[in-house]
Structure formats: C-alpha cells, structure tokens
C-alpha cells in the first residue's frame, strides 16, 4: 500500500475500519499469552513475587517513551510536510501516551512500596517518568487551549520536538541530582541481568502492549478525523444561506 493512499483521510478511514478488528484480536491473543507466561514465571530470589509487577510496569514505561517518539515523528510530519494526518496522529497519541505513563508511574510506585517502605521515592527513573507525565499533560493542555486544530497542531509539534530533545537532558540531570543526594542504596528496578524465565514473558507483554497502543491509536485517529469532519460540516452549516428560514419552512432543521 503506497504511502500516498494512506495519506488520504477517506482511505485511511476505510483501511482502519478493515484492520482494526484484526489488530484488536492479535492484541487480545498476545496479551493472553503474555499474562499466562507472567503467571507461570518464577519468583525472583531477591524481590519475591513482586517481580510480577515488572511484567506490566516495564511495557508501560517503554510505551511512555515510545509514544513520545511516535508523536515526535508526527510532529515532523506536521512541521515539514504540513500533513493534516500527522496532526491527527499527534493529537490522538497524547492522551493514550499520558495514560500509559500514568500506569508506569503507579505500577512503579506499587512495586517500590515493598522495596522502599514508601509509595514514592525520588528515585531517578520514577522521577524522570513523572516529569514525562507532566509533559504529556502540558501537551494535552496545549491541544485544549487552542481552538483552531491546525494552529494547535503546529504549536504542539514544536513543543513535542523540544520535549524530545529535552527528555535525555532531563533524564541525565535527574540521574545526576539523584546520585548527588543518595548514593546507590536504592535497589535498582529491572536491572540488566534478567533471567530468561523473566525475559520471555516480558518481551511478549511488551509486544502485546505495543500492539494495544497501535490499536487504540488508530481508533483514536479515526475519531479525530471524524471530529474534524463534524467541525467542518458545522462551519459549513453556520455559513449556509442565512435566510433558509424565510425561504422555505421545509428545509428547516428540526433543532428549534
């Protein structure tokens, strides 16, 4: 399927209508497999059964960054090619990304509670995710604050790209700030030495959640396209011949 076909919103709508059920099905199957495997996974010798939280925490944390990446690509599409479908993609991704980031935070905090004894520790990773969450929220606020979608899209695109550049800097600064204040006494979560028995379920869950995001994103994009159609139709309706009511009562709409 050439890209130019996808770029046409009507084609896009038709295509999403066809592939969404398949995507949803694949997501459900993979999620089921992933959940089954995570249930079977052994306990960690150090963290016990709480390691099970990892199987949903890590995919969410991965998505929190992946979605920002998707939005950055869409932002490039908005700024460079001025493509409206890119605007739609960026706008639809923001709330979904925020939801996954929120889940990463909450599962991280629930995982940390048995480790640290408090729900929240200003741990470098969690803190970075918290800042990312705030950035998602501010991006959503920006989308809401500007009435005209294409103007909002350009503003949001610039903020998204600035954020993309800034996220590594923020991450670095937070790491530095954190080590300055507390030497590595905190147990690092999800360290690099993962046993194979953990790796497989984790991988399946990560793919399942990525598919879940793609499904939700496509559906949300479809909504956004429809919303814009409604908007343009409403504008046409507003500017329609003003004296319809006087010319003929039959063309009047039943809203009155």
């Amino acid at each position, binding site marked *: 399927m050439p890209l130019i076909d996808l770029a046409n919103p009507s084609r896009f709508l038709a295509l999403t209508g066809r592939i969404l059920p398949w995507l949803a099905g694949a997501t459900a199957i993979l999620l089921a497999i992933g959940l089954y495997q995570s249930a079977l996974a052994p306990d960690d010798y150090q963290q016990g059964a709480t390691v099970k939280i990892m199987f949903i925490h890590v995919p969410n944390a991965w998505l929190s960054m992946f979605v920002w990446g998707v939005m950055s690509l869409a932002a490039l599409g908005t700024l460079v090619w001025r493509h409206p479908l890119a605007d739609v993609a960026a706008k639809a991704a923001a709330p979904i990304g925020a939801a996954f980031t929120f889940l990463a935070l909450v599962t991280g905090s*629930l995982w940390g509670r048995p480790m640290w004894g408090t729900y929240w520790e200003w741990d470098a990773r969690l803190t970075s995710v918290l800042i990312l969450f705030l950035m998602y929220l501010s991006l959503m606020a920006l989308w809401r604050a500007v009435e005209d979608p294409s103007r909002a899209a350009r503003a949001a695109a610039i903020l998204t790209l600035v954020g993309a550049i800034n996220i590594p800097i923020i991450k670095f600064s937070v790491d530095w700030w954190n080590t300055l204040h507390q030497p590595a006494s905190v147990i690092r979560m999800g360290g690099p030495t993962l046993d194979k028995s953990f790796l497989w379920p984790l991988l399946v869950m990560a793919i399942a959640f990525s598919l879940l995001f793609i499904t939700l994103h496509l559906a949300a994009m479809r909504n956004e396209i429809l919303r814009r159609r409604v908007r343009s139709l409403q504008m046409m309706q507003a500017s329609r011949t003003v004296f319809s009511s006087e010319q003929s009562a039959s063309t009047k709409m039943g809203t009155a």
Partner: protein
Amino acid sequence: MALGPYASFIVTSYALVAAVVLLLIVWIFADYRRQQARLSELEASGVTRRSRRTAADI
C-alpha cells in the same frame, strides 16, 4: 501461583492497569459513536461534504 506477602500490591497494579486500559477503550469507543451520531445528524439536516475532498481539508 503464590503471590507472597505482597499479593495486594501485585493484584492492585494488575487491576489498575486493566481498569485504565478498559477506560481508554470505552472512552475511544464512546467518542466514535458520538462523532458518528453527529455526522449522521448533520447529514440528515442537509449539510453535505463537498463532493471530492483532498487530504488538505479534513
């Protein structure tokens, strides 16, 4: 599958993820229905889209 002393945390986190994901799905689905309803309402009132539209004016 024994979840050990911290079972409540594990169950809570899984339940929370399920709840938020379900909420997202419900929200997106309801939004879809709402936009469809509005579109058909507008079309019923006689406003139609200009015949062939390009990508530039979604």
